[in-house]
């Protein structure tokens, strides 16, 4: 090993020792190998200008659920990859909340292309709530193309976040009562867009 290589290795070790991220919550709940791996992923995300809080939260969630270290590291790694894809799809000025919501949407199968379409339709309007509703619809077994089209339609119509939240609750209520998820979503959506206002509450 030449002197240059030795110096390089020494500097990397020094950098790691000096700049190791010291989140006390992580160090209190993760074992050393898991902590080291999670810290490396978080540092890498920071350099890539991705939000790091969701990664730390993911690790803390895993620890709280009693998940083993290897799966925690894998989950944090996967989330960092999804957030990177989400950031690229939503453009570089996406907020951390939008990136986080988009990463959840990617996790349930929404495509990067659909995220980019939503960003293009919504323009500068925040897409955090539409993405949360989209993820929820897909989770309720509404087919991804249908759910995506509905949310894009809402974005084009300028539906407010509060109305979107009410729409989501109504669809969930319908599904809980036995309705077909796709029929419930499309019917409620038609009413929301046609009236240009919030749909009636489930109890009405």
């Amino acid at each position: 090993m030449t002197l240059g290589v030795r110096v390089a290795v020494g500097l990397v070790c020094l950098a790691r020792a000096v700049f190791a991220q010291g989140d006390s919550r992580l160090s209190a709940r993760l074992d050393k190998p898991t902590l080291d791996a999670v810290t490396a992923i978080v540092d890498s995300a920071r350099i890539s200008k991705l939000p790091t809080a969701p990664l730390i939260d993911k690790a803390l969630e895993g620890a709280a659920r009693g998940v083993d270290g290897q799966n925690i590291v894998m989950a944090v790694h996967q989330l960092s990859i999804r957030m990177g894809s989400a950031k690229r799809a939503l453009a570089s000025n996406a907020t951390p909340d939008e990136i986080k919501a988009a990463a959840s949407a990617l996790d349930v199968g929404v495509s990067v292309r659909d995220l980019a379409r939503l960003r293009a339709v919504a323009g500068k309007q925040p897409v955090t709530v539409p993405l949360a509703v989209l993820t929820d619809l897909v989770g309720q077994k509404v087919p991804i193309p249908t759910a995506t089209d509905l949310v894009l339609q809402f974005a084009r119509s300028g539906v407010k976040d509060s109305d979107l939240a009410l729409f989501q609750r109504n669809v969930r209520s319908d599904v809980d009562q036995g309705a077909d998820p796709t029929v419930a979503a499309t019917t409620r959506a038609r009413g929301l867009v046609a009236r240009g206002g919030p749909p009636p509450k489930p109890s009405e």
Partner: protein
Amino acid sequence: MMKEIARQLRAPLTPPVSGSFDARVMSAVRRLPRHSRFKLWSRLTTPRTVTFTPLSWGLLAASVALFAVIGAARAFDDIQVATKPMVTALFPKTAAPKPPQRVQFVLVAPDAKKVAVVGDFNGWDVDHAGYQAKHRGGGVWSVTAPVPLGHHRYSFVVDDSVWVADPTAPRVVDNDFGVANSTIVVQEQK
């Protein structure tokens, strides 16, 4: 005799002639193994020629760059934290931190002995004092707690062991841990 010894000692030293007895003795002495501490000292103090290969130069440059980038990022974070009070004082409208909103969490769990809310907003801490729900009667548990603005994932934990997603909130199926969480987007009250 003593005068002769003194004269010899005062005489200037002359380098041993090549091939002479003195030269051979000094050569043999130099070949003897040195003490490790002396070797280290000698290595540190003796001038020598150092060669760098393109690979070693590249690694050296990359490590210095990495060191600088991480350091700059950390320094930027530290500077932001350190200057936050000053920025807040100078630009109160733009820099004032937005206060968390109080959010009510409700779960119907007739058989539960304990219900807590865990999520991104409290570090997924089951024992966090501010997020322990109270039994309001009839199996209804609720807690109103501060939640920062933004998108959060959360769940209820019943009796410290059963994780339950909020039935009224949007849900996100988590393929990483194989469970569903609820999501909430807390926005500023207008």
